[in-house]
């Protein structure tokens, strides 16, 4: 199990893998240990800096990586919210909008014509 596995295009050794993990882990631990130690636990010093704004709850601040338009929709949410409400998914509602807008356009054309 701990022997050398030749694959034809390289090799795999569990012992070398463990040694590499230990060496990299040691380097990471050393660098981390050199960091600032004076932060006080359970105070603001322990929290991330978000331009001075309070930290939101994890649920409130979750934005999926795929949501690239988040900033756009957040900034224009007052505009989008009523539009989203009108998109009911019911074909009768959409047909009603066409009829209502058609009537309005015909009235405008009729009055001006």
């Amino acid at each position: 199990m701990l022997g050398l596995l030749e694959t034809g295009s390289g090799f795999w050794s569990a012992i070398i893998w463990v040694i590499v993990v230990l060496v990299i882990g040691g380097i990471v631990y050393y660098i981390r240990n050199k960091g600032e130690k004076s932060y006080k636990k359970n105070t603001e010093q322990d929290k991330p800096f978000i331009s001075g704004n309070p930290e939101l709850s994890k649920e409130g601040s979750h934005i999926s990586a795929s949501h690239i338009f988040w900033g756009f929709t957040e900034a224009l949410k007052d505009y989008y919210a009523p539009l989203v409400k009108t998109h009911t998914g019911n074909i009768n509602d959409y047909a009603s909008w066409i009829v209502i807008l058609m009537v309005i356009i015909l009235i405008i054309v009729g009055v001006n014509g």
Partner: protein
Amino acid sequence: MDKVKLNKYFERSLWVFHLNTGSCNGCDIEIVAGLTPRYDLERFGIKLVGSPRHADVLLVTGPVTHKMADRVKRVYEQTPDPKAVIVVGVCGISGGVFYDSYNLLGSIDKIIPVDVYVPGCPARPEAIINGVLQAWIKLEKLREGMKAAQAK
């Protein structure tokens, strides 16, 4: 101040976080002027950082608007100890030309403790550099005090 004493303070870099609490940007431009080749503060290890969590000194400009008050307090609390606060410009000291405005809470020392005041409208780069030096000296004394307390 003699050369030996200055060298002692320049042993480690001084990282500064700049916070604008409602300034007109006049003082902010003078702070940037301190980093340009004419004065080149970075050659002494004095540099602006992007987070108060990395900073030794808070450099605050402008009077405190109502919306900035709790943010100023939070930024101050997020700065690790020991820390020093420098107010640059007369607006942060007394309100300056914005004194008694409906939109202001007042001077910075109403919100957080201030160590060094640098007056001016805007403050000159030389004055800002002198203020940073005063804060540095105070900070080193605080560090020495903390070290002595830990040794006991």
